[in-house]
């Protein structure tokens, strides 16, 4: 088990944020999405026209908002870790709740986006681009949902005083997972919503 280092600013060189188990999971997640992105690229080659026109039919505002929620959630979770490194549990908790708000905002935006899609006839029946769009975004939603479950656990543990400046491996592990989920969205958003 990896011991979290006591530091108020930066961890030492060669550190592993959180623990190896979580990193095994993160690398699996990145591999899973690498496969899905490969599907995107192959489909883009074979259905070039659909992929050129597809983004125009998506709700760019929803995509932009979700990018803002994901980036901001990442920012808040990084701050939560910085706070616990200074033994400031109450501040760390506030940041964790803000992460939860961002995640909830992401889910609500996604729900409204899908509702808008239905109203505007955006479905998998419309071709390869929309099949890939739904497959990528639904898989991402699943990872955000799992992240929310993990976040609830971390909030519970923080309330119980489980984390301190000298030990906060669980929080760092969760933070790493959340950042990885943000990273995936930072790829999904431009590929689906911007690139024509």
């Amino acid at each position: 088990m990896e011991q979290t280092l006591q530091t108020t600013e930066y961890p030492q060189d060669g550190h592993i944020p959180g623990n190896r188990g979580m990193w095994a999971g993160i690398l699996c997640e990145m591999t899973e999405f690498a496969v899905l992105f490969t599907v995107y690229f192959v489909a883009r080659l074979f259905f070039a026209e659909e992929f050129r026109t597809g983004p125009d039919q998506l709700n760019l505002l929803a995509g932009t908002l979700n990018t803002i929620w994901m980036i901001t959630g990442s920012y808040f979770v990084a701050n939560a870790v910085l706070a616990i490194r200074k033994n400031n549990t109450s501040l760390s908790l506030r940041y964790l709740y803000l992460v939860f708000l961002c995640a909830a905002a992401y889910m609500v935006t996604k729900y409204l986006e899908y509702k808008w899609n239905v109203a505007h006839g955006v479905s998998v029946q419309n071709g390869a681009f929309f099949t890939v769009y739904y497959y990528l975004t639904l898989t991402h939603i699943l990872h955000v949902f799992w992240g929310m479950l993990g976040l609830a656990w971390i909030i519970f543990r923080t309330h119980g005083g489980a984390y301190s400046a000298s030990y906060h491996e669980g929080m760092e592990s969760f933070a790493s997972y959340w950042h990885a989920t943000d990273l995936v969205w930072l790829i999904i958003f431009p590929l689906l919503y911007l690139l024509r």
Partner: protein
Amino acid sequence: MTHKKLITWLWLVLLILTLGGSLLGEMSQAGYLLMLFVTLSMAFKGRVVIDHFMELKNAHPFIRNTMQAYFYVLPIVTLVIYLFSSGRL
């Protein structure tokens, strides 16, 4: 600059890039300018989150290199596939 100040500035930069990209996507025609912006900002945003939010800049080299490689490979593949699918390669 403290770590907290640094990530706060970087967060603002990421937000500006996001809004700028969406504006560009909304207002511009399809083309190489948009594609370049998309690939470069994807690479930059990923690198910022990896190095400074995840603190992988000085992390174990296997983890750091694997995650950073993702944001070299994806933008390059995006560029190549874009050129292929538009008949330029």
